[in-house]
């Protein structure tokens, strides 16, 4: 924010000097009993206050204008009109992230759900064949059973090749389904940059507004809004650095057992 340098300083030095001068004049007049003079000085003091207030409001207006330009939401320029609201674009981008991650998760789960029965079938047939094989080794098998086992083993070897191919194909598709990370990562980084920019601009506005408050003597009573934990607050970031948050399942278990659960 280019304006933050002059918005962050206090009153203009000349204004401060004038105020100091007038204040001592006021004290002198009151002490010497010259109340008419004192009233004039009070009026002059008030004028200085008004003037600097006007100046500050003017400065605030200019800075506000610049801040709005920095947000690129000034619709007068055709080019900016096109990029009218980076903010609504940011919402679209984040919606895209939700959509992409959802798609990837579902695609992955489709493939997993497809693969699990294949793995189960291989295991079941392998276990069953092993039992039969052991019976054969113990010479407990009749010739007719042996012919059946012979055919089953043949089929099993045949399907094993196809099933492993299917599993391998599904695994590599699962691998490919993770490509969302690259795309969503880029989108999230762009939105993060925008949020940082907005934060800086807002901070500049807050500084300007506080300067006006300082001049007008306005005191705001802002109630601290506490986030209701009843509704849920979502995942905790930097949980390891915080005392009021558990850092994992072990933390939950320790806390609950300390309560006697």
């Amino acid at each position: 924010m280019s304006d933050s340098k002059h918005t962050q300083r206090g009153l203009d030095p000349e204004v401060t000097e004038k105020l100091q001068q007038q204040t001592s004049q006021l004290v002198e007049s009151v002490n010497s009993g010259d109340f008419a003079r004192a009233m004039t000085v009070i009026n002059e003091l008030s004028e200085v206050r008004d003037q600097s207030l006007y100046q500050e409001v003017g400065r605030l207006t200019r800075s506000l204008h610049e801040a709005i330009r920095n947000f690129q939401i000034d619709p007068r320029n055709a080019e900016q009109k096109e990029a009218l609201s980076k903010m609504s674009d940011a919402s679209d981008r984040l919606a895209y992230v939700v959509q992409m991650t959802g798609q990837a998760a579902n695609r992955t789960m489709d493939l997993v759900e497809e693969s699990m029965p294949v793995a189960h079938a291989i295991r079941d047939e392998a276990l069953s064949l092993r039992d039969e094989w052991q019976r054969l080794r113990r010479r407990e098998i009749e010739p007719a059973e042996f012919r059946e086992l012979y055919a089953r083993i043949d089929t099993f070897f045949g399907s094993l090749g196809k099933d492993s191919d299917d599993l391998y194909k599904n695994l590599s598709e699962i691998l490919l389904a993770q490509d969302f990370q690259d795309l969503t990562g880029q989108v999230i980084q762009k939105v993060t940059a925008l949020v940082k920019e907005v934060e800086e601009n807002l901070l500049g506005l807050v500084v300007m507004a506080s300067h006006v408050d300082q001049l007008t003597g306005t005191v705001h009573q802002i109630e601290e809004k506490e986030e209701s934990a009843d509704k849920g607050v979502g995942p905790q970031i930097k949980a390891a650095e915080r005392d009021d948050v558990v850092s994992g399942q072990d933390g939950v278990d320790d806390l609950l057992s300390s309560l006697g659960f």
Partner: protein
Amino acid sequence: MKILIVDDFSTMRRIIKNLLRDLGFSNTEEADDGNTALPMLKSGQYDFLVTDWNMPGMSGFDLLKAVRADENLKNLPVLMVTAEAKRDQIVAAAQAGVNGYVVKPFTAAVLKEKIEKIFERIQ
């Protein structure tokens, strides 16, 4: 064993559904928040409830309190599977009568352990 899975994200419901099936529980139904879940619970003869906390509409915490306040549902075992990790929240859930608390992200082993623990205590 009929189980209701409540989460606003369909992917998470699907993950839990799959893990439960691996544990031998294949009779599961789904709801996307407390408001949809509560009438299902009231009419559906469920044996077990798995719920997220943070959901639009009625949260899982409010659902838990509603279940405990209902004469017919008050003994229903409830497992919370949630990203909510504040100590105050976990204590509040325990005081509201939750039977188990799994914090996301979780593993299949943790889910299994908590579910088995709940059923051990019930039997």
